[in-house]
């Protein structure tokens, strides 16, 4: 590949489209409000979407290995409920956090057991556990809310790092994103995930413990959902059984819009990071001018469908451009061959 071909290949990658989208969202938001680009606004806007952003990281791995978890939002509701029960029982903040994490982990492990033990498609299982987990939250809370969380809990979901303006949830997200990125792109384990997603049978025959990896990822997804519940609860300092409603679809949208193939085996952390901030700031900007959430739903829905169609089109386009360029050197080399 020549330099120009490589340039074409890089430029028409899906991530490049996302960068353009992100820049477009920034231009849009700046035109809506001149204050948007102030650092404090850019940072504060992230509070609203960091729980979903963090959930997108393990979901990315789950989708790359060719599975899906629709139950994450239900897990968040259940973990937050358990956390509230612990608080009412007089638990300290660390214990409350442990309860939320433990609940999430158990929920993820149950998904893993049913999917892998009975060989049922994860979409069917997690549609069931989605109702089950949120249903348990409803059984416990009914139409009540849990409030009265200690003010100190807010330091996690609403806090800043030290004396800076940097939000704690954003800092946590960045640290987690680096960890997930290194594992996915720089480790043997990450290569295994791609291998499993591309062809689980071949991966199994190559001696990879496919089921063990998948079980670990489902459990991890539950654990991170438990953590997202801690962040969310500490941000809004209350628990209702209907919190995080429909987040499962938003999280899947973030991952797929980031260029991760829903069929598995393909995707990068960079795409997911870009889509997290594109969607996050898009929602923020549209809510600034009071665009109703239903209309934002239309936009994200179309983006999701576009995210599937467009990368394929771009790949075709970029391949064609590379082929077009390859013709020239080929003709040249033929010419030199006949000369000789």
């Amino acid at each position, binding site marked *: 590949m020549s330099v120009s071909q490589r340039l074409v290949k890089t430029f028409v990658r899906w991530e490049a489209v996302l960068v353009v989208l992100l820049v477009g969202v920034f231009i849009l938001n700046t035109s809506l409000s001149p204050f948007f680009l102030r650092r404090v606004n850019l940072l504060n806007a992230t509070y609203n979407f960091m729980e979903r952003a963090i959930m997108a990281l393990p979901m990315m791995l789950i989708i790359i290995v060719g599975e*899906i978890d629709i139950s994450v939002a239900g897990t968040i509701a259940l973990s937050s409920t358990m956390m509230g029960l612990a608080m009412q029982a007089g638990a300290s903040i660390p214990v409350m956090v442990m309860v939320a994490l433990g609940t999430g982990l158990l929920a993820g492990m149950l998904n893993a057991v*049913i999917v892998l033990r*009975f*060989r*049922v*498609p994860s*979409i*069917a*299982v997690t*549609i*069931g*556990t*989605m*109702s*089950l*987990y*949120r*249903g*348990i939250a*409803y*059984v416990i*809370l*009914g*139409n009540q809310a849990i409030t009265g969380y200690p003010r100190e809990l807010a330091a996690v979901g609403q806090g800043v790092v030290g004396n800076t303006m940097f939000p704690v949830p954003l800092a946590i997200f960045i640290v987690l994103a680096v960890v997930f990125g290194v594992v996915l792109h720089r480790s043997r384990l990450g290569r295994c995930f791609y291998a499993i997603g591309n062809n689980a049978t071949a991966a199994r025959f190559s001696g990879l413990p496919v089921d063990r990896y998948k079980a670990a990822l489902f459990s991890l997804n539950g654990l991170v959902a438990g953590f997202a519940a801690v962040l969310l609860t500490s941000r809004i300092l209350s628990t209702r*059984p209907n919190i995080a409603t429909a987040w499962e*679809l938003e999280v*899947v*949208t973030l991952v*797929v819009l980031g260029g991760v193939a*829903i*069929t598995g085996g393909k995707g990068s952390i960079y795409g997911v990071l870009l889509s997290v901030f594109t969607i996050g700031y898009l929602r923020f900007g549209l809510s600034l001018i009071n665009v*109703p959430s*239903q*209309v*934002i*739903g*239309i936009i*994200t*829905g*179309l983006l*999701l*469908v576009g995210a*599937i*169609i467009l990368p*394929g089109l771009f790949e075709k386009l970029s391949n064609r451009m590379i082929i077009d360029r390859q013709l020239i050197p080929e003709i040249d080399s033929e010419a030199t061959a006949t000369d000789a």
Partner: protein
Amino acid sequence: MEGISNMKHSGFQGTLLHRIIARREITLLVIIVLLVAAVGIRAPRFLQPGRQLSILNDTIILLMLTLGQLAVILTAGIDLSVASNLAFTGMAVAMWNMMMPGVPMIVLVGASILIGASLGAFNGVMVAVGKVPPIIMTLGTMSVYRGMVFLISGGAWVSAHQMSPAFRGFARFSFLGLPSLVWIGVLTTGLVYLFLNHTKGGRELYAVGDNETAAGFVGVSATRAKIKAFVLSGAIAGLTGLLWVSRYASAQNDTAIGFELETVAAAVIGGVSIMGGSGSVPGVVLGAVFLGIVKNALTVIGVSPFWQMAIQGGVILIAIVANTLMDRRNQARLSMNGVSA
């Protein structure tokens, strides 16, 4: 001949009882009868005809939507946009009726089927031609169609007093002792049954879902089959949209929100394989009736409605695990017969 006689003697197919239990529909029917009896003993008013009719009424719309869902799942797809389609079409025809009360119902019925079918066709074309995975496509249109409800209504409701008497009465008028809603449900069920079991187009849905490549080799177009399934699902969703707003006499932005998962649940409980290629209309009927009875039974025996979601989730999980285990046993029996023959 020798093979056949061997099969007769092989242990698994031995008794009539085994063969009956092997039919998953029969198993489900037995479970439903036991459930009704158990709830009836606990609360005798559950067995009164009035109560049964109200369960039937509540279940019909779920049943109709699940029949559409069946067609899509048969082709190894899924349609998560049915509830949003229902809400949009319901809102559209309700607003039409509000603005022009003189338009006859038959036109509105035709319009609802047409609007629903177009929304379904969009899903189908994008899935079959655009190669968008069905779950992603319908996840997207679920929020797109739901947002469109808001766009046309501006967030306002259409309530009972804004609807014409004919519109409000459409799902309720009584014929031979049963409300029209039930008759429409029965008719739809019959038509879908005929389509899936006795037409070439219907059998092709099974063929494509079972093995798309093989179906292609014998000349079955997967593209056409998938579009057909989504159009059917959309058309039914549109019709139920009209029935829903007529029956509850109100069209809202969050009409039937979350209902798409109930249709998937009813299909899975009815033995439809989420991987495609396997599932039957009788199974779907029983699956929908089972869910309807469970929901009604909870209120009758005085369980808090807040239990409903958790129990539904539990039932879905049990059903899919049971179906998988049953499938595996049938597979094992098939391969045993293969050996003995």
